């Protein structure tokens, strides 16, 4: 399961970023969002960064402490905060630049699809985001 981005429908409105931070921080904070929009200047298209939930995920294989694992039920890459040491190897190896760091906790965070029904997909006004099962 993963979030699919149709860039031809993305308007750069950032509602996905806001909904994500609202869900996890109960406040608006783009630097805490697990999905991010690069607001490129046209004709360069907008770019959306979000976890592709890779089947052979380099973040999982490179994590030295086993903090990243695949949820066998939903097929989602999850972070075990207790095991994360903040070494940031996963951030380095992610081909989609979709893992971020909480500099206060020194732990990484990423899209875990809100446990199956992602809030950003729910709020995206023009269906640029969909869930691929």
């Amino acid at each position: 399961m993963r979030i699919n981005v149709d860039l031809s429908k993305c308007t750069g409105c950032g509602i996905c970023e806001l909904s994500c931070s609202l869900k996890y921080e109960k406040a608006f904070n783009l630097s805490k969002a697990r999905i991010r929009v690069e607001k490129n200047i046209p004709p360069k298209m907008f770019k959306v960064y979000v976890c592709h939930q890779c089947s052979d995920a380099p973040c999982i294989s490179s994590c030295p402490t086993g903090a990243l694992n695949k949820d066998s039920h939903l097929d989602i890459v999850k972070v075990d905060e207790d095991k994360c040491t903040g070494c940031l190897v996963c951030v380095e190896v992610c081909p989609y630049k979709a893992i971020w760091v909480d500099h206060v906790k020194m732990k990484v965070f990423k899209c875990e699809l809100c446990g199956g029904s992602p809030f950003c997909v729910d709020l995206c006004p023009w269906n640029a985001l969909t869930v691929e099962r």
Partner: protein
Amino acid sequence: MYGYAGAILKVDLKTGKFLKEPLSEELVKSYIGGLGVSARILYDILKPNLDAFSPENIIIFATGPAQGTLIPGSGRGVFVAKSPLTERIFNSNIGGYLANELKYAGYDLLIITGKSEKPVYLVIDDENIEIRDASRIWGKTTYETQEIIKEELGDQRFQVACIGPAGENLVKYSAIVHHIRAAGRGGLAAVMGSKNLKAFAIRGTKSIEVPNVEAIVEFYKEIAEKCKKHPFLPTYGTPALLGTINKMGCLGTKNWQSEFFKGADNIDGYTTIPKHKLYDVACMVCPLRCGKVQKIDAGKYAGAIAKGPEYETLYSLGSLVCVDDFGALVSAARLCDEYGLDTISTGVVIAFAMECYEKGILTKEDTEGVDLKFGDGDALNEMVKRIAFRKGLLGNLLAEGVKKASEVIGCGSQFFAMHFKGLEVPGHSPRGLKGWTLGYSVGWRGGSHHDGRVHDIEYSRTLEERAFKVDDKPEIVYKTVCRVVLEESLITCRMYGGYYGSREPSEAHIKILKLTTNIDFTLEDLWKTARRIRTLIRCLEVRDGFDRKDDINAPPLRVLYEPIPEGPSKGAYTSPSEFRFMINKFYKLMGWDLETGIPKQEVLKELGLDMPN
């Protein structure tokens, strides 16, 4: 404080010092934010009668409680400063992703004073403030500048606002550009240019909190559903308005010699969007996505790309100069964006010069070889370049705005110099929509299509009501002025009039305030706040020597003495007696003295504005 970042950042470009001050709760309760709070601050610290290019002029970039939250249409911020074009207090609104970023960096307002000795740009990275050398980017276009700065700072997440060559050259109607959006009007880019400030870049990692997360999500969903059903903005954007307004006979054409443009179909959104649209763009938190990126594929101007051009630009660089070659129009719009020029003023100034050329007031010698005929797209593009770089005698003169240009050119050309209070007329007819003669004249900015904003109501009325009656116009202007100052303080986009109220302060505005700040406003409080903000701006005008004489002398003579000669609104104009009736009634509604136009003492007292001058 919910909804606010809670601080003001003050930067002095002369000393390079900066200061973070708390945003007072008392201030936001009386003035909300954005324009309201900025006007109050300028009243307290800006010297009266200051030259706009004085190092002491202050430029504010302000946000309101809605920015950075999930309120639809809140992707806007407002620049406020003394304008070099009108020499008045001026606010120029901009979309994109700039305003929310300032709040995430921890500031509701950015106040810039002083003048740097060398070209610089300002970096606001949370509490890290840095003034950096801009000698390498001075002279670059607005798009180049944004890319270079993001590259230099090593993060695409920085949101940049900058000026182009026009702002550096102190063109009086140069525009501040961010992303593909512009704070176009009033020449505030020239104020930045006069301070040697090329740009500022913002990145923030802080949170904006709201009192009730579930309630704001519910509000978002409700408005987003309505936005998606809008009859034309999500699909065609504002370019769709052109044909409609032309069919009403209200489209400024040939420097307002006519209000019906035969070539309208060639540049109307319904024609161009299906052929030329690349994709849709929205500002932050906007489900309306009214921005359309269009590209010209063939012909002389192949490769030209612009956002829009929006309705106002289709008017100013299209019908007003009689250019129906869409490629030439897009190219001119793109040049304006790259050089950082206001498309409205640029088009009106060039249309004025074209009429001078047509009437023989200007010759080919004066234009230095340009065959400045109406309808000539090449001449249009050439003049845009000459204005941005103040090239040649005429380019340099036109860069001063149509008021100054007509004073210098003389020979009666002031009759058709289309401006109110020095600000060039936008694309909403002061004859076909008579209320606009009043709206522009009593607006603090003059020829802005936002201060009076009568067309949100008038376009849907009958010809008789909009063009031949004046009875209810003062009340319409009064109410919409109150609506607009609130929206400029909250801040919400004017495109949301259909959802937040297009007539007057509304329950929706109260709800937005509650959802963001948790402050309870009654409708009565809201009206009073709106009247307070408008009246305070009036006090700033009065302090600079502007009063009734400037309002009553505002309309171009063409509006008062030359009826629309053809088309569906044929015969419409605003007679002097109608104009005087409207002004007097408007003053009564505002509580301003009929003879002087100065707010009455009892009104100032009621609004808490009876402060020492």
